[in-house]
């Protein structure tokens, strides 16, 4: 079946929702495709309070932000949302997206502008036995316990002390599970001090310069062997330690899900600071393929707050390119760009700044 729209938004997470929000009640026909049976993306499992300013929903829990945005977007008469619908391919010559609804119905989606907000997927880690049941991405554990109320195990070790590793450890404690340890390959804790302080206060040890050597178990994980790393990140023989656990969470980063952007033939670049291959783009989130905008983790892995700002920027850019900007668009654009820049300031933003300097190009308009 053929569907036509002015702006197509692929992905109903924080970035896609914020893009849609800026387009609510404009004269534009907006279509949002979402693979899941619900909107909100990974916000639905975020139980922690967000930081930042009032405009960025500071002091509100992630899943509540998801609900607020969903209500706003679904109540706008010019926005159509198709759930359980996957954008599975872009046809360059014919210029349409092929979408599969409920694994049964195929749609040809024609659009004037598209915002790709497909997010990211969790990375794994290379070690012996890493395929055993009981070894998960930290996000998977978050989904199981916070979205569906099911615990993956009783005795957990976390790999990675970035914000996800720290936050999920704390959430596991809230759900009543013992977190035995957090191990971190780097010499210092990766996440914010405030999160690390919280889990330490709750009695979870963080072992730095330590990694996992192998996982042991028959039908599922039974124990792991850890090993210390030297200053050159090399394993130090003789420092192996065994820990029993039934669950191992890997919080070792995410990679942008940029498959569609390859199909759009955007200029792509591998940037390790941003998690993998990302599309080059201007400060207003337009890629080198005219009319293709990006927002959120697919444009470089960061966090939900920056995804929301990028979504707003991409939405406003798409509207401007169709000469249908919403009211006070200029103010909102300036404020969003300023907030985003603010998030990237200081030592915490150093990695992202370095990554962005490799993909940001002059105006694609």
């Amino acid at each position, binding site marked *: 079946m053929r569907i036509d729209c002015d702006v197509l938004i692929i992905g109903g997470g924080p970035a896609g929702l914020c893009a849609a929000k800026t387009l609510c009640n404009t004269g534009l026909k907006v279509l949002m495709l979402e*693979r*899941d*049976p619900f909107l909100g993306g*990974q916000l639905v499992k975020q*139980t922690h309070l967000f930081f930042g300013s009032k405009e960025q929903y500071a002091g509100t*829990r992630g*899943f509540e932000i998801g609900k607020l945005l969903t209500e706003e977007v679904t109540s706008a008469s010019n926005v159509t949302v198709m759930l359980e619908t996957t954008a599975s391919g872009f046809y360059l010559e014919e210029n349409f997206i092929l979408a599969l609804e409920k694994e049964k119905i195929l749609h040809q989606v024609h659009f004037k502008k598209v915002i790709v907000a497909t997010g990211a*997927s*969790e990375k*794994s880690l290379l070690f012996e036995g890493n*395929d*055993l*049941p*009981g*070894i*998960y*991405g930290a*996000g*998977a*554990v978050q*989904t*199981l*316990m*916070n979205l*569906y*109320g*099911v*615990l*993956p195990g*009783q005795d957990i070790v976390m790999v990675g002390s970035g914000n996800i590793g720290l936050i999920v450890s704390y959430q596991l404690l*809230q*759900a*009543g599970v013992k977190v035995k340890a957090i191990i971190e390959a780097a010499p210092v804790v990766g996440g914010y001090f405030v999160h690390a302080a919280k889990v330490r206060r709750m009695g979870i040890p963080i072992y730095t310069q330590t990694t996992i050597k192998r996982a042991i178990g028959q*039908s*599922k994980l039974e124990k792991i062997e850890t090993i210390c790393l030297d200053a050159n990140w090399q394993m130090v023989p003789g420092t192996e330690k065994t820990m029993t656990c039934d669950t191992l969470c890997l919080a070792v980063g995410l990679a942008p*899900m940029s498959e569609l952007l390859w199909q759009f033939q955007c200029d792509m670049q591998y940037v390790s600071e941003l998690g993998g291959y990302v599309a080059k783009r201007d400060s207003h989130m337009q890629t080198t393929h005219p009319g293709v905008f990006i927002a959120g983790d697919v444009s470089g892995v960061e966090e939900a707050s920056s995804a929301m700002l990028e979504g707003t920027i991409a939405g406003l850019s798409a509207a401007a390119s169709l000469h249908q900007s919403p009211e006070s668009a200029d103010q909102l654009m300036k404020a969003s760009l300023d907030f985003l820049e603010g998030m990237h300031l200081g030592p915490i933003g150093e990695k992202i700044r370095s990554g962005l300097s490799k993909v940001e190009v002059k105006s694609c308009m």
Partner: protein
Amino acid sequence: MRIKDHPILEFHKGKAVTFTVDGRKYEAYDDEPIAVALYANGITTLSYSLKYHRPRGVFCCIGNCSSCLMKVNGIPNVRTCTQRVRQDMVIETQDKGATK
């Protein structure tokens, strides 16, 4: 294992449904993903690797990886972390005893 009390969250469940896994009957809640229903019943092996017959369980739980594929109502390679469980579903461990 299901969480009973949570300081922040409340879990709204659908009505109870029964289904079979490899012929054995289990119970879970309508509309939760199949893999979640299985985990709640203590089942963590969902399929086996073809060559070395290594057990496979959930890895990403959001439909990105292919670690949770099972046979559902006769259809192989169903992503059980996103596909919802329904009354009388027939679920089978995939590639159990596949030939080397």
